[in-house]
């Protein structure tokens, strides 16, 4: 297995290169490039809108209107941002540990399933059931990523491939649960069509809602912010965080310090899956209130992208998840502009590419003749 160790060592070297700043002296250049690339991505989206006969300014204004300006819109955006943020934090933990957990979409769905089961089947006071349900969501997501962890530890199956495959299985599991009357299918009178969905979660068991500055948000919002700040701080400052990052950045050093895939690697992946599941629980208990097979509704994918756009920084993820949530809520206002709401998925894709471009541009600059002259101390300059 020595090749495996070297492989992941090489691989992780590029992760830190990709998401870290090259060196301190070029932070300014890097930030300028990043902003330019993000702006360029938006510009290309605008060109695309214009190409299909729409008006880019109208699209932009209705996106802003739909996500921030109309009454209650900001609150809706923040509520959408809750699962995105949680998924992002999970993704960050797993990427930092050198594992690509990209099956977040499936973990969100399974988390939602677990949360629904607990919420509908447990008697007791509302606040307790809501808490238990959300925790069950965490357990569900951790269980789903746990399958990938077990496959990796037992047979070294690539986490990236196995989590992706599991993502395509998860909606079928949820569909199975909500289409059988002995499981979760809603058989009450209100569901006359017998659509494949669970019963509604009774209102006393939902996450507590409250109003701040005229915007309705629920308790999950506060919890998500606290959790993400806590995890980011732990990842950056604690011994556990150091060990996880060590595993991700240098496999051999990690081994010397007794950091193992069995302990730190597995924990990071379980936590990562757990946060996705927690996001699923928040969706069910905070905004959807019932389980359907499309419950994950791209929250998992969007959270993954938001983590990449945030360049694996937990603090920037706070901003990028709100941005992605705004695209989601704003898209419903696009009908009036005559441009399809799916333009937001194009914007998302372009934003992710834009977030990766600065690292590539730096390579181009370093390799060019003038770049070599200016950045003589740079890594590529040493070739001379």
């Amino acid at each position, binding site marked *: 297995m020595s090749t495996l160790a070297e492989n992941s060592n*090489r691989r992780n*070297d590029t992760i830190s290169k990709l998401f870290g700043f090259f060196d301190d002296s070029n932070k300014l250049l890097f930030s300028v490039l990043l902003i330019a690339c993000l702006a360029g991505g938006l510009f290309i989206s605008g060109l695309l809108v214009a190409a*299909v006969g729409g008006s880019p300014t109208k699209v932009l204004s209705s996106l802003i209107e739909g996500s921030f300006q109309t009454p209650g819109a900001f609150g809706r955006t923040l509520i959408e941002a809750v699962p995105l943020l949680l998924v992002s934090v999970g993704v960050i933990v797993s990427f930092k540990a050198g594992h690509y957990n990209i099956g977040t979409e499936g973990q969100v769905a399974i988390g939602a399933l677990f949360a629904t089961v607990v919420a509908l089947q447990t008697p007791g006071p509302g606040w307790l059931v809501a808490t238990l349900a959300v925790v069950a969501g965490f357990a569900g997501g951790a269980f789903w990523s746990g399958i990938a962890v077990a496959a990796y530890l037992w047979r070294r199956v690539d986490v990236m491939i196995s989590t992706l*495959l599991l993502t395509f299985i998860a909606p079928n599991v949820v569909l*199975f649960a909500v289409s059988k009357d002995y499981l979760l299918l809603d058989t009450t009178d209100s569901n006359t069509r017998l659509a494949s969905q669970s019963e509604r979660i009774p209102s006393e068991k939902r996450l507590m809602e409250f109003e701040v500055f005229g915007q309705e948000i629920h308790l999950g919002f506060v919890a998500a912010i606290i959790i993400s700040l806590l995890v980011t701080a732990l990842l950056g400052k604690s011994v556990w965080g150091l060990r996880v990052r060590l595993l991700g950045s240098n496999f051999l050093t990690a081994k010397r310090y007794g950091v193992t895939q069995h302990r730190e690697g597995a924990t990071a992946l379980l936590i990562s899956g757990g946060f996705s599941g927690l996001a699923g629980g928040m969706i069910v208990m905070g905004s959807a209130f019932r389980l359907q097979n499309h419950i994950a509704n791209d929250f998992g994918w969007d959270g993954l992208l938001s983590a990449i756009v945030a360049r694996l920084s937990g603090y920037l993820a706070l901003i990028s998840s709100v941005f992605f949530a705004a695209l989601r809520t704003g898209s419903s206002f696009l009908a009036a502009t005559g*441009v399809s709401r*799916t333009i937001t998925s194009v914007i998302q*894709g372009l934003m992710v590419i834009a977030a*990766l471009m600065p690292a*590539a541009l730096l390579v181009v600059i370093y390799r060019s003749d003038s770049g070599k002259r200016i950045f003589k101390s740079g890594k590529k300059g040493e070739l001379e």
Partner: protein
Amino acid sequence: MIEDIEIILESSIRLGHIFLFAALGEYVAERAGTINISLEGMLLAGAFGGALGASETGSPVLGIFAGIAAGFIISYLQANLSHRLNIDQFVVGIALTVLSIGLTTFLFLEIKIYSGRIHEFAIPVLSEIPIIGTALFAQRWLGYVAFVLPFFIWAIVHRTRWGLEVRSVGEDPSAANVSGIPVLKRRRQSIYIAGMCAGLSGAYLSLAVTGAFSQNMSAGKGVVAIAAVLFGGWTLFGTICGSLLFGFADALGLSLQIIGFNVIPGPVLDSMPYLLALIGLLTIANMAKKPAALAENFDPSD
């Protein structure tokens, strides 16, 4: 009973070809030591490009070429971002897949597409053979490419100098580099082949299998094609077997529901190819010797 078997065989060949075309390309790319998560995006772009090309020109043949070109464009981005500019290949793969899902969905809603469907062509005598005849020799004609493509891939990977260099790049890039083989160039070229094959696979999906493009129609087929390469233990024959097996699992799930077999619930049957791929990875794939430098980035300046 025989009819049921014929139906299942026929659709498993048809669906297996989707995996087969994409997996053959990914096989070349993985032998060069790269993994392309964007295969999913290439496949989807190929499906869209194929449908769009056929709709605009009115000719399915030109549609196929448009599909191959669309797959190539995505692979061009993947190759140059990850193996020229050293961005992590997996993150690039995720980004490109998302971008192609977004772009195709958006353009599909904005542009009206009326693609035709590729004709069925039954080979006279052979298609009369009982049981396997219709499955193998009465396909839509693009399907017959599957008889040729594996030999072509085998020839270029195992019987040319280029192929030898590609394999050496996948085993030990540093040694290859020292002996004068342009490592990153070979990797990029192998990804171009993956992109064109995945584009062909997508065009086959939209022009021959369904006859129309629909939103996100690849639905994980690219991922299963990657799994087929791993499942096949990075051998050409294994890859072919893997893709046909996953095609069979896919077809079995669909056909059993049509036939009315309901001992196994529908959702379980729907997830058959993914489950089987996962089980395959757990059991067989690990016994194989993988390209030693698989998924390893190579920076010639290091």
